[in-house]
């Protein structure tokens, strides 16, 4: 079954039982054991006259003429698209409050007792976003004069905050029951919503505590204006809690935005430098990924009788496009099918019960079996632990010693009081002396043990004498220790085959010719900053899916920020590369003169030569690797009307070599080539 598609397992059908074989599983865990590891974010955005006010045209070049409300919705729209890519299982919703209109599930004004939550308008229900949700939001934000939409009409009477909070409470209970992470993002410019009503204020405090007890975290995104700076002490400090319930050690405020000191951290918009949209977007972006632990109860053992508690997080992990799935088109609307497997005996196709299944290894053409207990025993290398074996200088950690992504560990006071200070001292020592700790790392029960190097974060260099407040790296990695799994001797491959026993070293003059090229082509700030390089395949995949889902036009050209800046390269090192090419020609000639037998017989002469004028040679490679056809041949076929006899790969190659677009189906390609031939 070669074309078998990977099917989706029904969520949790295999239960908590982890497959012992599959120990590469990087799934984040839930600490309580019973919750679903998912995140739900509900935006609560206030609608009022001031939120709808379009700022006057400013001289600022980044001046974005949108009302705060529209900015908030744009953020939500942006985030919705982003979450579909990065966390496709997580839910998101948008609740407007302070509106004249009300909307809550299937209620209407004739419902018994009227509206449960007057002036609360559930714009997008809390759920995994649907194409229609994205489309609706897009239309709202891109409308001609978006602020004048009927639903944005503010109510005449003030909205009661306790009502809003309880409305959110109901949404979370109904749509995100048992989620590990539930957050309410409040976006408002009103710092004292209960100014006139003391009773409502204390009711709001109670409703906020309800949310806290339900496990919902409230995050506030206040909007200040030059005329009015948002004062959290008037109301919001009573409803926001210091720590999120799921992570008692996490501190609610965000150190990165604290550089301004004295509380200005909570202010968005008062800064002229960046637009409200940018600052709100970056504030929300920094909160949007729920912190999910990979493990939470693995001790860090410094010595046999000396342990501290740490939690593990994955900071780096491949984000892959969603897998393709099967879709049933026979119903009212396209529906994704659930796949499942049925196990049958090969000989007679009779169904097999789980109890009849044995695991066996093939050895010498026959099967060797072990009991479940024996398999467990073979894989048991003791309890999960990060055990320090000893220390080595960083110079003993070559870059090639890498097999998979690292795990970040951060101290927790949960099991051992005092863990944080010990961890901090260890971090300090390793950083100061450029050491790493060699550890024995068993992340889970029955997981494959590895040796791992524990190394400190590389702090960002001082900018204007100021270090980053949180000790982060230049790319934003948090201060702390990382575990890098090391290869075992078994995992190191032998060197590639070569025709020379000793490597053919380049002579000094050629190295000298290369040196200025390296020196003059530093990346910006001399660093690789991942945030500057979105994955072009992933972005394109979702860009096309979005276009298909929303019935938009298919975009022509992808944006690919990973393509080198050819023009700059040419500008900066043109002379140097030409010089290097000349030197190379010379030293190769000399080498061949000294070693007339250097090119061993039986070896294909190199198809291309590295050269400074390689445009011609590149084409030659292509023509050889792809078995492509010459222009004459294509013209000949064209005259016979037989271009269609060529393969798609050949057609594409031909298009590429003539700088024609290579997109589209075979018919398109044929048409394009015919057009080109005619025009010549």
């Amino acid at each position: 079954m070669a074309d078998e598609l990977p099917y989706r397992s029904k969520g949790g059908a295999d239960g908590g039982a982890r497959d012992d074989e599959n120990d590469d599983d990087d799934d984040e865990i839930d600490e309580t054991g019973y919750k679903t590891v998912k995140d739900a974010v509900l935006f609560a955005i206030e609608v009022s006259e001031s939120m709808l006010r379009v700022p006057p045209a400013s001289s600022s070049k980044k001046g974005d003429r949108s009302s705060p409300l529209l900015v908030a919705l744009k953020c939500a729209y942006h985030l919705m698209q982003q979450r579909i890519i990065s966390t496709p299982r997580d839910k998101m919703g948008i609740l407007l409050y302070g509106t004249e209109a009300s909307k809550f599930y299937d209620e209407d004004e004739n419902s018994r007792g009227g509206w449960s939550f007057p002036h609360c308008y559930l714009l997008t229900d809390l759920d995994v976003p649907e194409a229609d949700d994205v489309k609706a939001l897009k239309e709202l934000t891109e409308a001609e004069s978006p602020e004048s939409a009927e639903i944005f009409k503010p109510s005449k009477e003030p909205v009661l905050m306790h009502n809003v909070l309880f409305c959110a409470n109901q949404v979370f209970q109904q749509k995100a029951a048992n989620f590990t992470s539930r957050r309410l993002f409040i976006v408002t410019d009103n710092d004292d919503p209960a100014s006139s009503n003391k009773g409502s204020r204390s009711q709001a405090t109670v409703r906020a505590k309800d949310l806290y007890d339900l496990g919902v975290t409230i995050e506030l995104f206040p909007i200040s204006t030059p005329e009015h700076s948002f004062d959290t002490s008037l109301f919001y400090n009573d409803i926001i809690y210091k720590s999120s319930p799921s992570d008692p050690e996490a501190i609610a405020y965000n150190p990165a935005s604290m550089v301004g000191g004295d509380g200005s951290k909570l202010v968005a918009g008062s800064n002229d430098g960046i637009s409200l949209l940018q600052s709100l977007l970056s504030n929300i972006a920094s909160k949007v990924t729920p912190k999910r632990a990979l493990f939470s109860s693995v001790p860090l053992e410094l010595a046999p009788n000396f342990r501290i508690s740490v939690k593990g997080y994955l900071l780096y992990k491949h984000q892959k496009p969603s897998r393709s799935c099967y879709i049933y088109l026979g119903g009212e609307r396209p529906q994704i099918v659930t796949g499942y497997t049925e196990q049958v005996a090969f000989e007679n196709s009779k169904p097999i019960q789980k109890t009849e299944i044995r695991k066996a290894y093939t050895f010498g053409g026959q099967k060797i079996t072990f009991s479940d207990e024996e398999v467990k025993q073979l894989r048991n290398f003791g309890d999960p632990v990060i055990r320090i074996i000893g220390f080595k200088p960083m110079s003993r950690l070559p870059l090639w010693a890498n097999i998979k992504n690292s795990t970040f560990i951060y101290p927790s006071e949960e099991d051992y009081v005092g863990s944080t200070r010990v961890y901090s001292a260890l971090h300090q020592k390793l950083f100061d002396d450029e050491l790493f700790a060699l550890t024995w790392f068993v992340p889970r029960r029955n997981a494959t043990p590895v040796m791992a190097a524990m190394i400190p974060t590389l702090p960002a260099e001082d900018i204007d004498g100021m270090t980053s407040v949180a000790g982060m790296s230049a790319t934003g990695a948090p201060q702390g220790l990382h575990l890098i799994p090391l290869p075992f001797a078994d995992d190191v491959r032998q060197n590639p085959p070569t025709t020379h026993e000793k490597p053919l070293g380049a002579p000094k003059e050629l190295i000298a010719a290369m040196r200025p090229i390296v020196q003059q082509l530093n990346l910006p700030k001399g660093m690789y900053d991942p945030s500057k390089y979105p994955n072009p395949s992933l972005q394109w995949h979702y860009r096309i899916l979005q276009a298909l889902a929303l019935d938009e036009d298919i975009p022509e050209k992808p944006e690919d920020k990973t393509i080198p800046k050819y023009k700059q390269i040419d500008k900066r090192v043109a002379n140097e590369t030409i010089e290097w090419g000349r030197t190379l020609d010379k030293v190769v000639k000399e080498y061949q003169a000294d070693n007339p037998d250097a090119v061993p017989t039986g070896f294909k002469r190199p198809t291309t030569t590295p050269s400074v004028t390689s445009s011609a040679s590149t084409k030659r490679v292509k023509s050889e690797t792809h078995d492509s056809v010459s222009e004459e041949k294509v013209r000949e076929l064209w005259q016979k009307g037989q271009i269609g006899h060529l393969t798609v790969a050949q057609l594409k190659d031909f298009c590429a070599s003539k700088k024609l677009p290579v997109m589209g189906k075979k018919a398109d390609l044929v048409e394009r080539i015919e057009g080109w031939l005619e025009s010549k």
Partner: protein
Amino acid sequence: MDKEATIYVIDLAKSMGEKHAGRSISDLDWALQYVWDKITSAVFTGRKTLQIGIVGVGTDHTSNPMAKGADGYNHISILQPISQILLPQLQALPDLLRPSKTDDRDVLSAIIIAGDMMTQHCRDLKYKKTIVLITNATGNIDDDDVEKTANFFKREKIELVVLGIDFDDRDYGAKEEDKSPLKRKNEEILKKMVDLGGGEVVAMQEAIDALSIPDIRPVRPTPTYKGQLRLGDPERYDTALSIDVERYFKTSIKRPPTASAYAVREDGPPDEGLSTVHNLYKYKVKDDDSSGGTRDVDRDELAKGFEYGRTAVAISDSEQNITKLETRMGYDILGFIPIQHVERYMMLDNSSMIVGQKGNDRAAIALSSLVHALHEVESVAVGRLVKKDMAEPIITLLSPLVAKDVECLIENILPFAEDVRSYRFPALDKVLTVSGKEITQHRNLPSEDLLQSMSDFVDSMSLVHGNEEQMSIDETFSPVLHTIEGAIKYRALHPTGGIPETPEAFLAYSRQPEDLQEQSKGALTRLMAAADVKKVPPRTKGRRKYRETEKPLSGLNVEDLFRNEKRTQISPDNAIPEFKQIMQHSDDMKRVKDGIQQLASILQNWVSKSFGDANYDRVVEGLGVLRQEMLELEEPTFYNDVLRDLKKKLVAGKLGSNRNDLWYRIRISKLGLITHEVSQFSDVSQADADAFMSLKA
């Protein structure tokens, strides 16, 4: 891979059954450890081209083609012709390899027979040919034919390895006391044979010792990219430079063999063996009209597509590639960065090597200049690799590696923007107050004393002394891989023998070396005193006394507000918060019990009103909260009673029909009875709790 043929010539004379040199097992059993290890390793590869033959010398009987024609070939038996060894052959061997009742044999004759077998089998084909002789060399050897035989071996390119039991080896420090003159003479004959014909004589002790270091089966290097490494765009700029390169894995995780699923039929005859399991893929869709709410659909009815959020996007067969980015094969350098700016922990995946195209000297020299230039200016390159047309681009880090035997670029995979999760954590070296002030003295910050004692401790635990490195990568072997392989080999030879212990060699690096522990004792004591770490007791009794109610940022005492609220009836639409609040604020056991009763009936009500599984998540969440609260309150019985009652009603069908799925959810969410192991106040045993989770019990 080359074809290989190995013949083991094993001395099975009576004397091989004796114990020597203070060993607890016979010479033969001792030597066979080596043979079993090598043969089972060969079987493991499953390679047809790895062939093995076995000749016994000193056997009671004679079974070889030369015995008829000439004297001197008695007591030599071909026990296993040259072939791939499969399990039946392997399992037949232990019975064949037993000491005989005679000491009459000539090992040189056996070598000649093995050589004959080898040439008969390999003919003119390309084989790597090895004959391994294992003997204690206590029998007579007629040395007339040594030179002739050696010449034959040399001509046929057969390597002879002699593993001599208690042979002398000055280099290895092996020497047998009171060696008999006959054995001394035999050792010399064999040495001469090897010197003339090619091969080596090794003391058995050395061979046995070497077994503790696992054989690493080399993987044939295969390029994962063959093309150009470019700087600039050669199609548009004539200043672009390009080098023909090949890419090979440098590291790749070697996983233990995986077991596949087979079925045993309990009704069938027991010796019928295991039958292969075949997976049938089936598909179902939601359908409210069908019983169970779903309906099976046929693969032919289905289109392929993707999910965009909750929306299914079908893509027709002709457009399957529409979401794929058009890319062209190539390896581009984006630019360079100083090596000290590399954030080492950012690397994903395994590493690779980039070398010049094989046999292309020009490419080798060109690449070498880049490698050395990077090395000299302490820089690395950032590259963009597209392995073949239409493949997804990856961003890589290319760093120089200059070694005696290889010069190359080491390639690591770098993350894209989407691969990075920007979690924020408080800094470790400072603590900030809510208002943003920096505090330098805090219980979470290390004191001077702690910093100093940590520094001393780390210094006392160094694994590197001068050039000596303990536990380097080439000395550490995957414990799981070798344990499982070892167990499979052992089970193949001892079908009823249990499983062997994991050899100590694979566990040595799971602990701190004893000498280091000894050396760091004092530093550790001081460190632990300065750290003053205290284990949190498993459960804090009467938690309300220890844990205050959480307060909002303003520090407002919310408890007072709740006193005014007078919540006594738990409202079903705010059940969890209100239940928690009752647990937090009541000291009165009667109110606690009442709260539990209320929550229990709300949960049951949710179940009975649930359309399908609509309310199950809420029920599971409610049970989870209740269980947690009861654990903290140290009243497990309350929870257990609620769960028992719920199950009773579920089974009796009082909460709606077909609620088995809910019970399944409760089971996989690990919300079973609280056992004595979990809470000492429970009287439920683990076994009872397990049995309780079955719906039939």
